């Protein structure tokens, strides 16, 4: 479940609905009731409001903290730093992005072995995004030109296949065609 939430775009969509649906029901009900059903003074005792206030704010706070704390291990900077330190052997792919193509040190990687992607841009801002064969985004990186250190991310592919590479940062009139292929064997 957590993998789905933090590693899949649709997981994010589910989180979105998780917050949206109660909000919509809650908000619309109150407005409808107090604007169309009975606009008279509500019976809630004045001393009750601060209690509801604290309940509401703490519910929101707990939800917020939960979503974020649970996400920490899924943050690529965290896993990348951990893997780089652990001494686990990994494959390396160096990338230079230019308008409108990629120079890649390799277009083939092994399944199950961590891959360290190090990417730079040679002209303007580009992206380096890897798509799973089923169409979802595995990860995306932003490449800013003129940086000394490359944008770095370690990822371990679990499934073999042809992974599409796309630029997700608008880089001019051929941006859409800035694509490549990464083969996982």
């Amino acid at each position, binding site marked *: 479940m957590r993998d789905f939430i933090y590693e899949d775009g649709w997981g994010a969509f589910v989180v979105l609905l998780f917050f949206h649906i109660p909000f919509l029901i809650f908000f619309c009900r109150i407005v409808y009731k*107090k604007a169309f059903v009975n606009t008279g003074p509500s019976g809630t005792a004045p001393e009750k409001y601060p209690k509801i206030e604290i309940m509401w704010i703490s519910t929101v706070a707990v939800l917020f903290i939960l*979503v974020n704390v649970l996400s920490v291990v899924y943050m690529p*900077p965290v896993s990348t730093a951990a893997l780089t330190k652990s001494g686990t052997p990994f494959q390396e792919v160096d990338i230079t992005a230019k308008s409108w193509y990629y120079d890649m040190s390799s277009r083939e990687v092994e399944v199950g072995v961590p891959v360290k992607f190090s990417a730079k841009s040679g002209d303007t801002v580009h992206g380096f995004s890897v798509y799973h064969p089923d169409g979802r985004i*595995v990860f995306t990186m932003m490449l800013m030109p003129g940086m000394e250190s490359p944008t770095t991310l370690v990822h371990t592919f679990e499934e073999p296949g042809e992974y599409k590479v796309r630029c997700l940062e608008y880089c001019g009139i051929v941006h*859409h065609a800035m694509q490549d292929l990464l083969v996982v064997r």
Partner: protein
Amino acid sequence: MSTAAKMIQGTPVLGKMFKVNGNDDLASINAWPSLIIMTSFVWLAIALLLGVSMPIIQYFGLNIFLFEFYTALTLHGAAMTFPFAFSLMVGVSLHRAGACMGKKADGPLVVLYYIFMNIGGLLFTLSVLAGFKITYTVMFPLPVVGAQMGVWPMWSVVLGFTGIALILVSMIILYPIQILQMIFWGKKHDELELSPRTLNDPGMLGMLIAVLVLLVSGLPLIVTASSVLLYLYGIFPAAWIGWAVTPVVFQFVFYIFAHNLMESMAIMIVSAVYGTLPLYLADGTRKLYSDKLANAALWILLITSVTSFFHHFYTMFPALPSTFSFHGNVMSWGTGIGGAFTIFTILATIWKHGLRPEPGVMMILAGFVIYCLDGVTAMIIGNVAMSYHLHGTLWVGGHAMTVLLAMSLMWMGVLYHHYPVLTNRNPDADKCRQSYRMYFIGGVGMMYTFMAGGAMGIPRRISNWVESGYMGIGVFILIFGLILSYGISMFFVTLSKSREITT
């Protein structure tokens, strides 16, 4: 009669909707705001046409004049954000500030704002037509790289940057100083003070915070962008501006402003909601549930939003160190706490006192609902882990669009509320109801369509939807775009069917 009133009178169609009495006492808080609002709606009409045309351009692979994808994309985004949404806010808030503090809203700064924003918009439009297709986020150093690669002529870069500079000066300097002047220094005229308010009032406090955010977060960009511009004009030698054209420097100052521009516009509209909602309470209380809580929400929004801009750069680790990513993550979700305070204040106010469901206030609440829904989409991409699957997709474009749609709908509601004083005419209530209902359906539909597109991994700003198999989403964008356009045109009808107030 003031120049502004004459200009409105001379404008076909829209002139009728925004006509003001240029000779009465209130002309100094009505004429220029009304002209600014009217002109913003001209830009809206253009933005709308371009927006709806984008799925059609994709489907038919069009490449004619404005109707080429990246041209439409750049102009749509720029027109929607600056001369429309921002200017609508400026127009309504100037009138509001004038009437709340009894200050004139027609000084030289207002006139200059109007000229700079609209001439800036025109120059930028011309540069885009000349090939300068950089999207409304500039994507520096793309402007220069494109010229070096021969994609667009260097003169279009100079023209485009001149337009951008005028727009930036209007937003970062002219408008904030005008509001500060009205709050602190300007001469008070009792006949203009229609509904007196002080800075203890959340409605006024938010306005002050918002313009300070614009001023402070924008100044670094003014310095950077004007250095680049002076170099382009040949006034500064290259050696002087090396720091400014360093991509990371320009990008950071740009996003510190761009991000806080949205936050400041949000604070501004939330404060306008705080100011307007109490006037429609059923029991006639005319007070929020708690001014303290409302003000606390504004302060939380201010403090958390200023440094949450790091979320624009999460995916460039380690160029953006993880410390800043985590900080951005915490702050982005912190804005949600401010949002929760606001939601509570608004609901508790309505619950306690009941609501008169007049079209203006319902329009504001419809916009507020979209604004809250959008806030969640923003927090999700504000989470580092989720950002690595969504950054650069339609999700992000959808968030930017939705927050603008939400704020604009709320401003349209506030405009509906002020319209009788502004023009001495009552707008058409039934048409307004139709307008916000369709706008709401269109806006929320667009939002979910874009978010679904993001979840599917559709890159934003690509012109090959058909080839990439993404046209299905394009169809939904078109459908909801048309519903939204219908809602907006109903708002035009709301104003054009307004009736003179006879006393």
